[in-house]
């Protein structure tokens, strides 16, 4: 049992001691194990960034997911493994145990509860296992500046001895190599997001592993889960929570950036699988470490220039980094986009960081069944439409530079909330839009002229691909809207266009 005091001032060294103590293994062994883990290094930088000042140790904590794994596996071990965990709560504020106790007692001498809530950074569950001790971890994200985005987060509440605390994040945990390998851990994190978004049951790691094995029985044993999961097994696990798996090839950089942006911006975390290769020895072929899966949870729009694809400009091409829950590293671990691969925080065989590269091979998206129109279909439509507009723009210069498109999935509620707050439309137009019936899921393609939106195309994501799926166009710019209304709908003109998917857009303006 953890014998630490209740409240401890934060330091990296102290954190390592606490993790070792709470794991339940002899200190000397635990210290060595934890020091070898990447999580320790990652948490050091992460907590420095979050400015952690105090740790509150909550002993005898029952974690639902670990309890499920314990009941299904660990309880049958001859060796005794505890079922109760320790939960460490982190605060960006200094306070002593006496002040904390005063807060619990409701005394004025304690830290005001609202202050505690404001400075709450989240928690880490420490499992009573010899090595794989990092359980459910819910920590505040990096600050979302203009470039960093973490759209797939949700609120988690923690009741600390009666104090209601909350943190906005997406849960992470390391694989225990028993109930879960990397694929299960990544899926578990993804389900943490989709469970809230699409209202489905969030299975524990062992439930995910067992379910996945129902579809395709592995040649070797499923538990302990050293054999991992295949893409087909992961897709089956997604179906079992009543979602539809969509498999994407992420090897083309433009497709990778545009697809992850399109779905992640709506709050849907993605699963990314690929190969890890060690490039420590540049004079020899890279060493294949194996296949690894992570949960994609955020991105950074840090590239100063857009990368055109056949001239077409997409905001998503500014993605220079992604943030993933890498169960071997930590939550929101950064992977930088390089030419054909992603950099990682893994150690190479020389023990140094940054020598291992990740080569994406599959991207798996868990989608609610009503999200039917795939992103690529929308991309195709907008690219063709953009070709027409750009030809006219280049000839008549009604905008100084080429339109930049921002394409992402959204919901009718989010869209209308943004329309409520938009400063680019007048009130009468706003009311008309807000009162229009729209489908639950929409593809939103916004055309930008610099920092000003000129056009919003809303396509029905619940329609069939052959349908007339443009349900609304919001016109912010008078020049472009008149051009579309008069020019593209002129009988002499439209007869020359082939009936491609852009016809839906032209058809809408014609009938408006």
């Amino acid at each position, binding site marked *: 049992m953890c014998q630490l005091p209740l409240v401890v001032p934060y330091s990296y060294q102290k954190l390592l001691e606490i993790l070792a103590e709470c794991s339940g293994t002899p200190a000397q062994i635990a210290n060595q194990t934890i020091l070898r883990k990447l999580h320790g290094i990652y948490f050091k930088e992460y907590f420095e960034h979050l400015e952690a000042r105090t740790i509150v140790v909550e002993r005898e904590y029952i974690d639902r997911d670990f309890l499920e794994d314990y009941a299904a596996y660990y309880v049958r071990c001859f060796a005794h493994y505890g079922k109760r965990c320790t939960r460490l709560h982190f605060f960006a504020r200094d306070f002593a145990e006496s002040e904390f106790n005063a807060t619990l007692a409701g005394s004025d001498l304690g830290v005001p509860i609202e202050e505690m809530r404001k400075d709450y950074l989240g928690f880490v569950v420490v499992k009573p296992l010899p090595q794989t001790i990092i359980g459910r971890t819910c920590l505040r994200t990096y600050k979302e500046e203009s470039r960093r985005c973490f759209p797939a987060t949700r609120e988690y509440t923690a009741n600390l001895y009666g104090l209601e605390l909350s943190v906005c994040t997406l849960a992470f945990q390391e694989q225990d190599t028993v109930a879960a*390998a*990397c*694929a299960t851990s*990544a899926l578990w994190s993804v389900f943490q997001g989709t469970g809230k978004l699409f209202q489905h049951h969030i299975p524990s790691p062992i439930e995910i592993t067992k379910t996945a094995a129902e579809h395709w029985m592995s040649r070797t044993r499923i538990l302990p889960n*050293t*054999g*991992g*999961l*295949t*893409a*087909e097994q*992961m897709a089956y696990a997604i179906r079992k929570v009543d979602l539809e798996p969509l*498999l994407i*090839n992420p090897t*083309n950089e433009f*497709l990778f950036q545009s697809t992850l942006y399109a779905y992640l911006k709506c709050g849907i975390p993605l699963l990314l*699988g690929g190969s890890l290769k060690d490039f420590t020895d540049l004079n020899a072929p890279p060493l294949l*470490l*194996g*296949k690894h*899966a992570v949960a994609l949870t955020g991105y950074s729009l840090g590239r100063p220039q857009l990368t055109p*694809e*056949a*001239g*077409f400009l997409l905001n998503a091409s500014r993605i220079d980094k992604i943030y993933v829950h890498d169960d*071997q590293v930590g939550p929101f671990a950064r992977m930088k986009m390089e030419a054909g691969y992603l950099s990682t925080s893994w150690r190479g065989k020389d023990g140094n960081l940054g020598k291992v590269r990740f080569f994406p*091979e*599959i991207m798996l998206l868990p989608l609610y069944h009503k999200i039917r129109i795939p992103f*690529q279909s929308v*991309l*195709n439509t907008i*690219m*063709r439409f*953009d*070709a*027409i507009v*750009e030809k006219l723009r280049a*000839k*008549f210069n*009604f905008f100084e530079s080429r339109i930049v498109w921002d394409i992402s999935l959204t919901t009718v509620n989010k869209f209308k909330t943004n329309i409520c707050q938009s400063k680019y439309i007048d009130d*009468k137009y706003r009311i*008309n*839009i807000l009162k*229009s019936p729209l489908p639950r899921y929409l593809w939103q393609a916004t055309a930008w002229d610099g920092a000003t939106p000129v056009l919003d195309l809303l396509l029905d994501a619940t329609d069939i691909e052959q349908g007339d799926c443009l349900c609304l166009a919001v*016109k912010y710019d*008078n*020049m472009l*809207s*008149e*051009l579309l209304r*008069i*020019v593209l709908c*002129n009988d*002499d*003109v439209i007869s*020359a*266009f*082939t009936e491609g998917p*852009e016809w839906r857009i032209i058809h809408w303006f014609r009938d*408006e």
Partner: protein
Amino acid sequence: MVALTPKRKMSERTKKVVNDALDFLRTDDGRQQINSAMHQANEASAKLRKASNIDPTLLHQPFTI
């Protein structure tokens, strides 16, 4: 379909651009340029569609580490 767009008065600049564009698109050269641009967009789309195909052998390889 309900008309949502408020009626706005066209500026002189907008009128000129619209008329010039109409004249341009009524010519064979104008329509040819538009078709050529859309053809390029089609090729880019086709290339992306091809790039999106998954190698089926990857589906059965487990993610283990």
